[in-house]
């Protein structure tokens, strides 16, 4: 019985064989065309960045020197202008924003992914967090102005670098939360069950297994989010980044300058020398981003290797 059906199948297979008409040349043609298409897509991004870099370095190279990094800006002697206070201010912003937003982002993601029951309120929170990621950054600036600069002035010191960092933290929290949740969600449930089955509490499972496993993915989110934060001009302009100051930021309650606002200030002046300064400033901010990203990527790779 089984044999007969097999024979029938074979006959049918043979009969069907003659109905296969195919041109390998056409199929490989599409194959090649597609691979060219995606290569071009990838190259466009890289090319635009390269053109931008070459252009900016060309414009700013005359101004790039150690002196540029260590001098204060000057409107009277623009040739001697430097970016020092803005660079220090941006590093302060970067560090404070990371310190504020990373624990909050991780915490919120852990809550939503591991603790929150599937209730209407929690679903609302989830949808709103995704929506917040799309709110224009200047709106966050206005929010920061209302809450951190004015309402909480006794705590934040008004237009301080802490205020700027708090505002930027608000801006990047949605991105941090979403990427960390994705990282947590990609951990199979069997890991959690394996932990519980040994008599572990939820906290023990989260701390020992879930957070270490989610860290590489969460770090990628942090890299992207902090890169965005340090490049933002609009929100920190609104919350009072200084256009000029005669000292460098030395504590969280000090005033601050920042690279993007400094560049914005220079670029809005018509003289050539300010345009060059702006270009040099752009090179510096890109270098800062590159260094910060490299550190994060090295960290991520180290964590990935361990797991």
């Amino acid at each position, binding site marked *: 019985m089984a044999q007969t059906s097999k024979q029938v199948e074979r006959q049918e297979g043979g009969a069907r064989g003659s109905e296969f008409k195919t041109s390998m040349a056409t199929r490989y043609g599409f194959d090649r065309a597609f691979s060219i298409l995606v290569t071009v897509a990838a190259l466009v991004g890289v090319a635009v960045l390269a053109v931008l870099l070459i252009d900016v370095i060309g414009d700013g190279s005359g101004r790039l020197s150690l002196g540029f990094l260590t001098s204060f800006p000057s409107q009277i002697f623009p040739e001697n202008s430097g970016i020092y206070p803005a660079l220090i201010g941006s590093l302060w912003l970067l560090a404070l924003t990371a310190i504020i937003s990373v624990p909050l982002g991780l915490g919120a993601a852990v809550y939503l992914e591991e603790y929150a029951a599937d209730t209407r309120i929690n679903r609302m929170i989830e949808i709103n967090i995704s929506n917040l990621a799309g709110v224009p950054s200047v709106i966050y600036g206005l929010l920061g102005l209302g809450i951190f600069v004015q309402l909480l002035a006794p705590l934040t010191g008004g237009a301080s670098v802490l205020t700027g960092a708090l505002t930027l933290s608000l801006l990047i929290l949605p991105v941090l939360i979403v990427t960390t949740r994705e990282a947590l969600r990609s951990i*199979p449930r069997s890991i959690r069950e394996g932990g519980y089955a040994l008599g572990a509490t939820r906290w023990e499972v989260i701390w020992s297994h879930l957070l270490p496993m989610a860290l590489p993915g969460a770090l990628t989110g942090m890299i992207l989010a902090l890169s965005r934060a340090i490049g933002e001009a609009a929100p920190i302009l609104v919350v009072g980044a200084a256009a000029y100051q005669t000292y460098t930021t030395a504590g969280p309650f000090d005033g601050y300058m920042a690279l993007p606002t400094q560049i914005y200030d220079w670029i809005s002046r018509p003289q050539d020398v300010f345009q060059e300064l702006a270009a040099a400033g752009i090179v510096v901010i890109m270098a800062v981003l590159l260094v910060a990203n490299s550190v994060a990527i090295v960290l991520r790779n180290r964590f990935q290797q361990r797991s």
Partner: protein
Amino acid sequence: MTQSERTREEQRLTGVSRDRREGRRDAGRPPAGDNGTLGMKIQDLSAFYGGFKAVTDVSMDIRANKVTALIGPSGCGKSTYIRCLNRMHEVIPGARAEGSVTLGDQDIYAKGSDPVVIRRRVGMVFQKPNPFSKSIYENVAWGARINGFRGDVDELVERSLRQAALWDEVKDRLKESGYGLSGGQQQRLCIARTLAVEPEVILMDEPASALDPVSTQKIEDTMAELKKSYTVVIVTHNMQQAARISDYTGFFYIVNMGDPGRLWEFDETEKIFSNPERKETEDYVTGRFG
């Protein structure tokens, strides 16, 4: 009307014959003349996923230091049932269980009974090997450490790995990741980490179904060794495996699609495989369905 009376009434109305009803009521009773000590006593256990009843009214006496196998067609509630024995079932959102499961002199579903404590006493090995993303050593040591183990951790890790028949294969690379092991080794690592918290009962949910025959053999050998010190309950789809390794066998069965699974027959393994009471059991163990 009590719960069981209602169930019987339901069965009468749905036309299940009288001897089947009697059979079900007798299913969990220990075989006559058996004088082994009791490991766990399950009474009228039902399990739910939200509004869906997946397992109904299982009563079963599990003998200490014996291997109890649970067999039956797919979807008849074996895995759900075994997960109720260490309160892992309720980890799934919306899942809950009713009835009583007595371990020693404690009902693990009693008010105030702590699932975290229960799960240490009743360990579990899952269908798919699920080692932690840590070193082999840490995989074994972690559970003991969080449970407050104060002894020599090195010694505990070695002893657990030896019991799980894995020590010789990994003793030179304890610091390497557990993910670097083969599937069979990973499963034995999961057994070792379960043993390291020194449970009283070990539940195994198809522990060898994802493994090759050689690894399966090693797991089975391990189990024969384990029952000297532990009570073992194992779900398996492999009838030969159940026949080879178990002392008692429970057959789960589902009458109609969508009905909850039931314990259809429970007896000494030899009896189940040679001379079962019920027709469905015989059909299943002789491979006529499932």
